[in-house]
């Protein structure tokens, strides 16, 4: 197994367009494992997600890619019998360390889920939800933040006249973009996306992919996807997981043209998975 070093990944990846603006926070796994009871879903994965780039995690069902993703903002805490091994570091802090504040961690690491899951509240309140948690009800600024977030998620023009409508009246694709806006509203540094387009039709999927391209360079994006083409289209780096092991990790362009591992090639050409 190849253990790619940060240096050679950086070299292989395209340089990020935006300036880093002092926000160097990044996510790194160091021999990280996750267990469901006795079942080890993620095995000693060592991996570095560079800042302000899009990293795709691909692999067949049950390979542990979602588990790995959800470990980053500790959404797996809810699972009874779940435990971790190794280290997972965010911005120099051990994510599973005893002194970490989960609330702050999740504010800095946003998440978009597989199925659009807006709250049964108005569009405005959906976007404002996270902000209200952290700022309290500061009405004037809230308005600006909601508008900016919706604009960034490419939804503003479609909903600006109906901010008080229930979010569930939006279409599936709009709902997913609303969820992205909701995540962006708390101004996170990392955005985790767990198969964000698997419940959407091709047009809505294209819209989300465009959005990811726009967000690239401003946020560190980690996206789990089943869709190989999607990984190829949107990501700078790709990690291939198989049965909990990291098989290959490298620049997307290189991995899709000249995979170093036989299993990667087999998976990409559809021989298994």
């Amino acid at each position, binding site marked *: 197994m190849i253990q790619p070093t940060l240096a050679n990944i950086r070299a292989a990846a395209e340089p990020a367009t935006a300036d880093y603006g002092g926000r160097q926070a990044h996510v790194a796994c160091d021999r990280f494992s996750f267990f469901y009871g006795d079942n080890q879903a993620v095995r000693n994965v060592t991996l570095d997600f560079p800042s302000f780039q899009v990293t795709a995690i691909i692999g067949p069902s049950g390979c542990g890619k979602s588990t790995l993703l959800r470990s980053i*903002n500790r*959404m797996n805490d*809810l699972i*009874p019998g779940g435990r971790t091994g190794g280290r997972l570091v965010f911005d120099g802090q051990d994510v599973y360390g005893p002194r970490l504040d989960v*609330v*702050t*961690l*999740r*504010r800095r690491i*946003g*998440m978009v*889920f597989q*199925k659009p*899951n*807006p*709250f*049964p*509240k108005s569009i405005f309140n959906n976007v404002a*939800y*996270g902000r209200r*948690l*952290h700022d309290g009800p500061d009405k004037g600024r809230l308005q600006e933040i909601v508008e900016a977030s919706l604009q960034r998620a490419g939804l503003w023009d479609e909903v600006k006249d109906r901010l008080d*409508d*229930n*979010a*569930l*009246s939006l279409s599936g694709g709009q709902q997913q973009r609303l*969820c992205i806006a*909701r*995540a962006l509203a*708390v101004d996170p540094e990392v955005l985790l996306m767990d198969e964000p387009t698997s419940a959407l039709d091709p047009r809505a999927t294209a819209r989300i992919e465009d959005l990811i391209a726009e967000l690239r360079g401003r946020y560190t994006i980690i996206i789990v996807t089943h869709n190989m083409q999607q990984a190829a289209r949107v990501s700078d780096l790709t990690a291939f997981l198989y049965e909990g092991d990291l098989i290959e990790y490298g620049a997307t362009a290189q991995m899709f043209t000249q995979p170093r591992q036989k299993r990667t090639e087999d998976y990409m050409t559809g021989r298994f998975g």
Partner: protein
Amino acid sequence: MKLRSRKLLDRSLTGVSVMAIVLMALALLVLLGPIFSRGAAAFFFRATSEFRRINLEQFNRGDSRRIAAESQAVAEARQPLYGMLDDFAAELEDMDPARRRELRPQFKEVRDLLRELLGPLPGEMDAVMLRQQYGQTRWERAQVTLQRILFSEQWDYSDPSRMGSKVLVPRRQAFVGTQLEPLFPHLQQNLKSMLRPRFTFYWRFLSDRSLDSHFFGGIWPEILGTFYLTLGAMLLAIPFGVIAAIYLSEFAAAGRLVSLLRVCISTLAGVPSIVFGLFGLAFFINTLHLSHSKSVLAGSATLALLILPTIIRAAEEALKSVPHAYKEAALSLGASPLRMVLTVLLPAALPGILTGIIISMGRAAGETAPIIFTAAVSVGRPLKLWETLNQPTPALPWNIYNLATEHQAVDQIRHVQFGMVLTLVLLVLLLNLAAIVIRARVSRKMRG
């Protein structure tokens, strides 16, 4: 063959279900029919001049001049009748002793019945009890009394092989040839002018206090008592119930203790309500000394215990049915578990929780057994809010039972009892209706 038998099975199942529903509807009709028709009689009836006099004298209601004029006219109409009584009394004195001894008790009976029908006879002292100061206020009750004046009930045991049978004997027969004989046809023909029945809608039945333990007046103390008891029970049960449900559904780790807790709650829901009543007496009054004796507070606490399991279970189910995705979304945005519960989980579960609350509200309003020992008295005045801390109260469910079984004159105040039943049924119906409306509104708001 297989398909045919399957279809047959399907159809018979449908048939049985339809039959069950029809049976239920029939039972409901049979039950509600008399409740509504007889309950309505408490509000809508032919009121006599006595009714209007009570209203004026006890509640200071009505046009006093017109009622005085009416009393005058009524007294004039009764005058010949009272004349006959006086004449016969004089006649009785001159009779031979044997006949006098025979007639005197019968004459006394007639006088007693007339007093019941028309109020105190002229020249009599004012009675202490309110019920003896006035005649019949309701025309249908007046007619019952009239029948009892016209006919005396006697039992015929002449045939030893059969049970005794009731025979109605005209009282007139005993008085043939005396001056009292014409009283009976006279009374029968002129009763209307003596009592002047008029159709009345007595809506104040709901807002009047009861006079002389429900002989006259309304049921306001009972309604208010039921309201206090129910409100108190909800105030105590809702916070505890919802918090317990949140704990059980969100924070409790799955374990033996928690499943034991769930079993306990289910068991509690099945405990007979009379046991709760006794527990309330033993615990809230005798042990905790919430109040010196029965009080609304103790009753509310007992009712709260009774409905707590229902609220907990309904709320827990409602909380559990909130999609997991909402919780994840809230948590992923950095909400603490408590914030997540307050801002996402509870609002989404609200329709279900409300349904549970209002169902148990109906139950609390209608329960009798828990308040017998802890809160209810048969007669009382409307309480002030602060008096609920240490005062007992009459309440609809208990007074329905009380009027049906323990009142001195059950037969004469049936209309009050049915009025109470109707009021209670309507109250519970109204609560359930409110539940449906609120739930529909809340869930429509959720769905968008």
